[in-house]
């Protein structure tokens, strides 16, 4: 059977006789990688563009149409040492990018207007105490209006739209006081200009928009970055399937191009990318991603297999019952909708602040107007003072208080190996006081490892490793890794469901089931010592050895558990695996609370119980069976090796083999929440100082501008502290 890879699904027509493809690349992290990849790919003839985007970790490629097969780029990148996957931009991501550009344009316009209006305002301010004649002042005011009004109409769109949406549904958000403040300030300034008055607030209004747009843009770019990461994750997963295109002809195609009724080939060691039914072949499949159960399930004609199951021993032909679009993605969307609903139930700190803020500010302004009227001031003066109160209380610093901290903290977490899937997860993570771990793939490493390699002579281990490379079985892969084998043994033959055999220097060598190698007695002995492990036997002539293969705990799991306990966070294991296995892990980690053999529904029930008791629960899990409980928990986290669904549902994703990012994420988010609160108080404190001045009616545009920029700078500088957590908390690493 000849296998070809078909990536035409991802190739786009770039016009002018060029084709374009985007690849998500794993492990691009520095300038060195960037130039290595760009040079390596540009060296291929007919390639017209190879450009790495270090922020998104992607490569854009263009070449002369029809001249090259895109699979060649992936091979070339593999030669250079990078794993690459074709990538399709999700529409949500494209929309985020467009929104981000729009905000940047608004920011550019607002900043231009601020600088020019300020250039006109400073002479007026200084002219008021020197010798500027009223005609010149009016001229400068008119010029300011000419710049500020169109600029505010354009750059204020994000705020006006959002405020309008909120008001139409009967809500109040932070954009309502912002919009009212800006519109009143501009309106009053125009009125004052027409009447040749001394003070106008064009500069304050447009500067307010500039500062707030900085906050908006930071917020947006953080969200866009997490979207890009999530998009890459989707591309890095096993997104291809081997499809039969003829009776004996197979082709590797993206899952998106598979339709129900197609027949796909599932070789040993491959993860199934679709849901379907076995029509031919016998094998054992590992469904631990779906159920959490680590014992293998026998698969034969008629057995249903699900996306995410790992085929272990034999080759299977599977008829696709539903392509991934119909089941997995639909399921993701449904769960994401649930998660979003849960998110909307959680009121973000910023919204809580604005719900309190807007009524107070507007009431104060109204009282000021009424107060001045009672004191006998004219209509005009009373309203001018009232508007001045609104301008000075316009939540400039409040608008920056939270996005700046979130951006800095998410950058720091990114460096610590944690990716954010949702923007407000930092706030929720900071409140966590109960952590639930899944066992398989979360506390343990996702792949199998040989635990007794030191008991096998080196020569035998090396030979076994070479033989193992001829097999696709995950246990064989573990043996090959343990031996550090590089070149497979020539002429080795795989016997489905049994093992591999070959000859080495005239002696027959076999690797596989104990019965295949005649090592049942040895296998039983090892199995008694370590009942959790699966046994791989190796026979070289008359010598027999056995390897115990199992999922190991992550190296720093114990340290992480005790670090969590030190922070007064309760730790618990909820696993779908057998009691024996869970008990062993719980003992090794010093976790007293554990439950084994739990179904997804049980997991949710347990989380709901804890929620009722008032705990803020974080769920850390990787399997498909964890996905609903990840959505149910207050906040959730998944390792990067997790199933699609869990990764999409989790609020945070952590990279690499250590478990340490879990604690780092908690530390960073606690610090960040602390700083957000501090920033809100700073902003409120500034208002407490400035409002009495505004009420007393002595505010000049100069005071308004200075106070606004001063408080914004203070809040931004304070946010930079979110980069670091206290040394004492980080030391245990």
């Amino acid at each position, binding site marked *: 059977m000849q296998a070809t890879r078909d990536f035409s699904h991802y190739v786009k027509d770039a016009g002018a006789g060029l084709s374009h493809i985007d690849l998500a690349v794993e492990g691009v992290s520095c*300038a060195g990688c*960037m130039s290595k990849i760009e*040079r390596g790919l540009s060296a291929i003839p007919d390639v017209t563009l190879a450009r790495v*985007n*270090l*922020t998104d970790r992607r490569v854009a490629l263009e070449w002369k149409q029809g001249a090259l097969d895109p699979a060649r780029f992936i091979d070339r990148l593999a030669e250079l040492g990078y794993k690459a996957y074709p990538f399709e931009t999700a529409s949500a991501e494209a929309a985020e990018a467009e929104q981000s550009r729009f905000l*940047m344009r608004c920011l550019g316009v607002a900043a*231009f207007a601020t600088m020019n209006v300020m250039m006109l305002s400073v002479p007026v301010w200084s002219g008021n105490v020197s010798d500027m004649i009223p005609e010149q002042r009016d001229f400068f005011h008119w010029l300011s209006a000419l*710049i500020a009004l169109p600029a505010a109409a354009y750059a204020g769109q994000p705020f006006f739209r959002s405020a309008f949406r909120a008001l139409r549904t009967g809500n109040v958000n932070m954009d309502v006081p912002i919009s009212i403040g800006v519109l009143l300030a501009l309106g009053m300034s125009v009125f004052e200009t027409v009447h040749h008055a001394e003070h106008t607030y064009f500069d304050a209004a447009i500067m307010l928009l500039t500062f707030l747009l900085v906050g908006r843009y930071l917020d947006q770019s953080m969200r866009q970055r997490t979207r890009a990461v999530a998009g890459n994750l989707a591309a890095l997963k096993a997104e291809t399937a081997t499809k039969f295109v003829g009776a004996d002809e197979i082709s590797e195609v993206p899952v998106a191009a598979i339709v129900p009724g197609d027949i796909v080939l599932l070789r040993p060691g491959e993860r199934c990318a679709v849901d379907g039914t076995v029509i031919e072949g016998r094998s054992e499949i590992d469904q631990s991603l779906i159920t959490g159960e680590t014992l293998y399930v026998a698969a034969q004609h008629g057995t249903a297999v699900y996306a995410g199951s790992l085929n272990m021993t034999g080759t299977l032909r599977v008829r696709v019952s539903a392509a991934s679009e119909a089941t997995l993605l639909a399921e993701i969307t449904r769960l994401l909708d649930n998660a979003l609903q849960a998110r909307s139930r959680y009121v973000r700190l910023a919204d809580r602040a604005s719900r309190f803020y807007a009524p107070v500010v507007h009431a104060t302004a109204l009282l000021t107007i009424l107060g001045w009227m009672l004191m006998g001031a004219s209509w005009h003066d009373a309203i001018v003072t009232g508007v001045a109160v609104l301008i000075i209380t316009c939540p400039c610093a409040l608008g920056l208080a939270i996005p700046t901290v979130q951006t800095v903290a998410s950058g720091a977490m990114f460096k610590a190996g944690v990716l954010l899937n949702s923007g407000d997860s930092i706030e929720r993570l900071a409140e966590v006081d109960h952590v639930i771990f899944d066992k398989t793939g979360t506390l343990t490493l996702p792949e199998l490892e040989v635990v007794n390699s030191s008991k096998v002579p080196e020569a035998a281990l090396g030979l076994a490793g070479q033989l193992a490379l001829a097999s696709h079985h995950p246990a064989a892969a573990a043996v090959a890794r343990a031996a550090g084998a590089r070149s497979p043994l020539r002429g080795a033959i795989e016997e489905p469901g049994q093992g591999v055999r070959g000859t080495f220097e005239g002696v027959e060598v076999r690797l596989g089931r104990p019965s295949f190698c005649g090592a049942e007695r040895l296998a039983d002995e090892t199995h008694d010592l370590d009942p959790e492990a699966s046994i791989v036997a190796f026979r070289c002539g008359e010598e027999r050895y056995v390897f115990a293969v199992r999922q190991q705990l992550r190296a720093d799991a114990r340290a992480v558990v005790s670090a969590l306990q030190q922070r007064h966070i309760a730790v618990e294991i909820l696993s779908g695996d057998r009691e024996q296995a869970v008990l062993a892990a719980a003992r090794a980690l010093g976790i007293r609370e554990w439950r084994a053999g739990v179904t997804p529904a049980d997991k949710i029930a347990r989380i709901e119980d804890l929620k009722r008791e008032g705990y803020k629960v974080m769920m850390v899990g990787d399997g498909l069976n964890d996905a609903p409980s990840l959505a149910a928990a207050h906040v959730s986290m998944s390792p990067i090796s997790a199933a699609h669904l869990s990764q999409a549902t989790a609020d945070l994703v952590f990279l690499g083999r250590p478990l340490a990012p879990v604690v780092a994420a908690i530390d960073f988010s606690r610090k960040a929440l602390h700083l957000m609160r501090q920033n809100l108080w700073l902003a409120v404190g500034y208002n407490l100082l400035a409002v009495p001045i505004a009420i007393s009616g002595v505010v000049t545009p100069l005071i308004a501008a200075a106070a606004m920029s001063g408080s914004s700078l203070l809040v931004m500088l304070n946010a930079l502290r979110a980069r670091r957590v206290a040394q004492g908390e980080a030391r245990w690493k």
Partner: protein
Amino acid sequence: MEVMVILVPLALGLGLVGLLGFLWSLKSGQYDDLEGAAWRAIADDEPAPEIPPE
């Protein structure tokens, strides 16, 4: 004070040129990869291709 007739439009004109420049740079994708751009500045140039001796 007649100088203002020149200075004010000049200042605004220069500001406008700056704004247009910014919008152009945004449109041509110069803000798409800020991290990579920081490194590209210090990356070594590709060594010049060796000219074969005649």
